[in-house]
């Protein structure tokens, strides 16, 4: 007795991808099923980068198929990832070389947006994605220091700049373009809009799956011009568990909803404190605030990070935790959050419902 392609599909329909919560068939991941006598081979193409779990997924699928198809001979499963581009609203110009744009925002300042943004970017890159970092904080850019990049971008033909690179990321920041004396920059409304647009569109991004945008805090001009001019897939909101930060995070979330930017989810930073002496973990700012806010706004709780001196030391010295200590718990934590974001973004990319309709002109 042998088996058919339909049997294989049927078997995979009963197996859930732990990352998406969907079975592999309805997730449209199963490709290229080949049956040769009793031997079976197939490809699994995940919509999110997941190099660190390819082996795990392969083993899981092979074991499942062996059990479901007792007559099978050899089973070969090849797992890869392919990130799909997001469908954007009409009227907003696409950015060349970029498939998905993810903004990292907060209401309150200093909650760890830049730290979270850079570690998420590095985690996505570690999973095999091509990732860029756009530092949209034109008032106080942090990414040059966090990525350990100094120097100026090379000018290319046609008024383009080459992004600077380190740790496998392509990066652009106002910090690369102006002298870093300590004077704060003063920008007026239209200049802000232009600066963001130029950093975004005059950088020659090279075939990015994700461009992470590190925003300044609050709900000002940058956030508004992002919503109006940038084909952004969605925003990740970073907050700390204190009431006051959560209050501002709510404001930020509402502002994005109002201007039609989708919320990917919420990351709670500095959730607990881990004592550097004894390792004891404590909810010094209160527990469960981020989760409560998510429940209130039907947003997804993407995960949380402890207040840990290593995060600060590593990130502020130009080698963020995900690359400084890739096997540690914190890096694993960032990778999990990044994977959740990637899965969400893949789902958003398949949702074409918010494309601006064609305007029909009638002689009636």
């Amino acid at each position, binding site marked *: 007795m042998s088996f058919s392609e339909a049997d294989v599909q049927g078997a995979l329909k009963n197996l859930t991808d732990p990352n998406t919560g969907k079975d592999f068939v309805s997730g449209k991941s199963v490709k290229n099923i080949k049956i040769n006598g009793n031997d079976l081979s197939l490809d699994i193409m995940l919509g999110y980068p997941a190099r660190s779990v390819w082996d795990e997924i392969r083993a899981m699928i092979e074991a499942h198929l062996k059990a479901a198809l007792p007559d099978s001979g050899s089973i070969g499963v090849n797992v890869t990832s392919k990130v799909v581009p997001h469908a954007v609203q009409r009227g907003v110009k696409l950015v060349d070389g970029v498939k998905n744009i993810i903004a990292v925002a907060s209401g309150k300042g200093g909650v760890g947006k830049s730290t979270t943004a850079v570690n998420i970017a590095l985690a996505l890159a570690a999973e095999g994605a091509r990732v860029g970092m756009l530092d949209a904080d034109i008032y106080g850019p942090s990414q040059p220091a966090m990525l350990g990049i100094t120097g100026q971008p090379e000018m290319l033909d046609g008024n383009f700049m080459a992004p600077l690179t380190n740790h496998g990321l392509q990066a652009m920041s106002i910090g690369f373009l102006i002298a870093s004396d300590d004077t704060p920059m003063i920008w007026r409304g239209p200049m802000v809009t232009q600066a963001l647009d130029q950093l975004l569109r005059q950088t020659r991004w090279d075939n990015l799956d994700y461009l992470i945008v590190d925003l300044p805090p609050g709900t000002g001009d940058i956030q508004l011009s992002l919503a109006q001019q940038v084909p952004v897939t969605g925003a990740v909101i970073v907050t700390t568990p204190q009431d006051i930060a959560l209050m501002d995070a709510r404001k930020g979330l509402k502002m994005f909803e*109002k201007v039609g*930017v989708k919320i990917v989810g919420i990351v709670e930073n500095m959730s607990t404190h881990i004592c550097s002496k004894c390792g004891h973990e404590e909810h010094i700012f209160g527990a469960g605030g981020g989760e409560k806010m998510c429940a209130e706004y039907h947003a997804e709780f993407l995960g949380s990070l402890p207040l840990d001196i290593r995060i600060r030391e590593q990130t502020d010295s130009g080698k963020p935790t995900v690359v400084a200590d890739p096997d540690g718990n914190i890096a694993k934590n960032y990778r999990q959050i990044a994977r959740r974001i990637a899965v969400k973004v893949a789902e958003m990319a398949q949702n074409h419902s918010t494309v601006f309709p064609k305007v029909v002109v009638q002689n009636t």
Partner: protein
Amino acid sequence: MSGYPTEIKLHQQSRLLEIAFDDGICYKMPYEYLRVHSPSAEVRGHGTGQEKLQTGKKNVGIVEILPVGNYAMKIVFDDGHDSGLYTWEYLHELGEHQAELWQDYLELLTAAGQSREPSH
């Protein structure tokens, strides 16, 4: 968030804009009504009592409609006015309260001794 538009029709003869949203609601609104209620600073002024009454727009036309981000559209009128951002929320509001808002407008016109007819 208000529903997202699924269909927009410009009836150029009758000067009516027809807009349907994914929450199932559909409105038909005269171009003139949309023009005189433009949310732009030019029309609204800066705060209540600052509004500038729009007159003589009976025959105004629409040249084009442009999406703005994910939350609004810009209507370009043939009298050159193009600075109003009509958010989905505002369009819902205009559609829902069309009768009252139009009546209010007509009363304001009369009170100001002005007319819907274009001058000359």
